[in-house]
């Protein structure tokens, strides 16, 4: 169905189920319990999960398939965001044209950057893309202040009057989809649980599902195979008479457009852009997401994006007082000691926890979280069965 084989269809259905039921899955703890701190089912974070999922899926199309490590992907995200917000400020508050504009602007920009950077490969390519991204950041931060708003960035102001809008005097425009406000949500109270279903989240989730589907199709297409060939041996490919550059450029542009799509969606959900969206740490983040989840796998980048965004938003908000509350049942001295031990890893120390997790994954699960999942799956399958003699057969690379 849908041009997918059985396994891919299964994966697609699982992802669809997970994203559609996210408000339930991410809010497993009752509101009044101490564990409510770990609930992630509020609109903003759910939106970020899927949007950065798109960003990572796109990055993985380039890095996972061709092996070209772009270290400047945040530039496309940022450029897409700027394109989208200008569309909203000038033309229409509807999110669809804004998102399209984000994709187009990022696409054009990535053609230009890719045309230059793809002349080199390996570390030189990475450094070139990094240079471009930092250049865009610096431009947005200061030189292009009239267009980008500089450090303060761009927002929709009460003085903005898009062409296709019917705003009253002094009213500040809001992103909408044919009149439906992105921030609209309805809340479902079941016992002590509160589930929020947010319009913006579902729009972003549907876009992510489409992006995910397209990515599966690219992975399974002859074009995807060609990209894999570039990864395994580019020289051999050239000797067989195939020019790899158009393919890498196409992959680069597609990947850039995915980033632009994510940027446009970010603006659609939260109408604000700042230049730090293009900073090199943002480019590094998407690399981390992809590697953490599993390079070259379909679902890995989405998982990685989820883990990183979860840590950034949930772990960083646990402060000392919350810890003291948790361990209040212990005797005083022990409580202080435990808090002293745990404190460096939460709150402002969330970077440290993320770093440790990243190291563990890279060392023990080189295939990322997906490999971890596969291992667990295998272990469950083989449990109880006697060890078979042959072991698995690996296809030759």
């Amino acid at each position, binding site marked *: 169905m849908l041009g997918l084989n059985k396994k891919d269809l299964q994966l697609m259905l699982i992802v669809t189920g997970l994203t559609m039921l996210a408000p339930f899955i991410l809010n497993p703890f009752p509101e009044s319990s101490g564990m409510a701190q770990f*609930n992630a089912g*509020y*609109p*903003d*974070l759910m939106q*970020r999960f899927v949007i950065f999922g798109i960003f990572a899926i796109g990055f993985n199309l380039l890095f996972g398939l061709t092996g070209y490590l772009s270290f400047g992907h945040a530039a496309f995200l940022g450029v897409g965001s700027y394109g989208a917000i200008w569309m909203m400020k000038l033309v229409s508050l509807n999110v669809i044209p804004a998102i399209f504009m984000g994709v187009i602007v990022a696409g054009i920009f990535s053609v230009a950057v890719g045309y230059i950077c793809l002349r080199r490969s390996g570390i030189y390519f990475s450094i070139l893309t990094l240079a471009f991204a930092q250049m865009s950041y*610096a431009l947005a*931060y*200061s*030189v292009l*202040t009239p267009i980008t708003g*500089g*450090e*303060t*960035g761009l*927002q929709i102001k*009460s*003085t903005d009057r898009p062409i296709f809008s019917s705003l009253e005097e*002094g009213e*500040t425009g*809001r992103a909408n989809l044919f009149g439906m406000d992105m*921030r609209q*949500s*309805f*809340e*479902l*109270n079941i016992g002590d649980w509160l589930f*929020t*279903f947010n319009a913006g989240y579902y729009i972003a989730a549907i876009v992510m599902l489409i992006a995910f589907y397209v990515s599966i199709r690219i992975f399974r297409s002859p074009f995807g195979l060609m990209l894999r060939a570039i990864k395994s041996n580019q020289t051999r490919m050239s000797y067989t008479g195939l020019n790899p550059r158009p393919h890498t450029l196409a992959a680069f542009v597609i990947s850039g457009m995915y980033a632009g799509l994510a940027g446009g969606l970010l603006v659609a959900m*939260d*109408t*604000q852009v*700042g230049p*730090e*969206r293009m*900073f090199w740490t943002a480019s590094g983040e998407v690399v981390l997401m992809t590697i953490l989840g599993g390079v070259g796998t379909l679902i890995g980048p989405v998982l990685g994006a989820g883990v990183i965004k979860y840590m*950034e*938003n949930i772990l*960083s*908000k646990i*402060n000392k007082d919350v810890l003291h509350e948790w361990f209040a049942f212990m005797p005083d001295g022990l409580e202080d000691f435990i808090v002293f031990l745990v404190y460096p890893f939460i*709150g*402002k120390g*969330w*970077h440290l926890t993320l770093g440790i997790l990243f190291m563990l994954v890279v060392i023990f699960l080189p295939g990322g979280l997906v490999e971890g999942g596969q291992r667990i799956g295998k272990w469950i399958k083989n449990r109880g069965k006697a060890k078979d003699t042959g072991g698995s057969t690996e296809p030759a690379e």
Partner: protein
Amino acid sequence: MSKSNFTRRGLLKTSAVAGAGLALPTIFTAQSAHAFTNEPTGGTVTLGFNVPQTGPYADEGADELRAYQLAVEHLNGGGDGGMLNTFSSKALDGTGILGKKVEYVTGDTQTKSDAARASAKSMIEKDGAIMITGGSSSGVAVAVQALCQEAGVIFMAGLTHSNDTTGKDKKANGFRHFFNSYMSGAALAPVLANAYGNDRKAYHLTADYNWGYTTEEAVRASTEAMGWETVAAVKTPLTQTDFSSYIAPVLQSGADTLVLNHYGGNMVNSLTNAVQFGLRDKQVNGKDFQIVVPLYSRLMAKGAGANVKGIFGSTNWHWSLQDEGSKAFVKSFGTKYGFPPSQAAHTTYVQTLLYADAVQRAGSFAPCAVAEALEDYEFDGLGNGKTLYRGADHQCFKDVLVVKGKENPTSEFDLLEIVEVTPVEQVTYAPDHPQMGGPEATLGACNNGA
């Protein structure tokens, strides 16, 4: 493949089911029961403290957080009460706000507007915060202020000095106690003219971002009005760490005063470079060469060490002030943490008290009621003398301190000395001043949210 037959009956059935499905969600729209966003219903009220805990301003953020915790303690009746005892309004009685115990959540802005907004949103959407405060750069403050305006909660700005926060980008739900670039310029100029004369030639080095621009503009306008001449204004990249290539041309330009529109690490590095180049020992146009730093903070003074000695700048508040409010605050902060508070700590502590007091006086947590209580409110006893929260732009107007680096510091905190307290009349401007975005910049209408 499945075969699908469209019949009239089938279509009717399906559309009826679909219609019911679409109508169902409206049953659950419980939000309309609240009069405004995050109306506190239980015995507690939650405030959101959104400060940088990582990144370049983490030190300031840590100090802000200390002050917030102290303020919450005092609001709930703990500690010695701090500035609650000296505050001119006696509405607060140490039983929380409107009888509700004050609780708080914290978040990390990372000094990035995206992260700051994400953190503020999680406070509003997940933790039910009724007020967001914090920020230690203008970009972040402007971004979070706009978010709070959209969401319908009050934003009490922390450390943000750029004119834009209450100028070009002002919002009806946002309030700032800290002073701004214009006030720095207006306060410094007369003191500089007194100390260095009216015929100086100034050379500006400006950090290449919004705060740098507004500061340069403000200082230029004020000093030129005193008769100074601006020889050149050069923009330096924010990430610059070595300023020697920018300092060398200063001497050739014939300027006799260098104005460093830099903050934080930038200022530490540029000032150190300037002193190492021997600028301060030079004689130009028959005058001693001088350096000026428009915005000072204790942490910067600490970073630049002995180089700050005798250099003029401005600051919002300093712990060595001898009024009752400042003394009470320094005492309770010092007792709790063991060292004196910074100006960032002071402004955030005061903002929290001012918010609580406004709620108490308004008798409601509704943002519009709180905003009304804060607008054109005059108070005293919070360390800056008589202060006005101007209704036209939600900016506090108070005396500004002109300071200079101390010649003989007695401790690592005793780095600045107060040269002059510029009276508030001298730093007041019209709400539609061109530096504040002119007449187009408006507050808009206040927003109660849901």
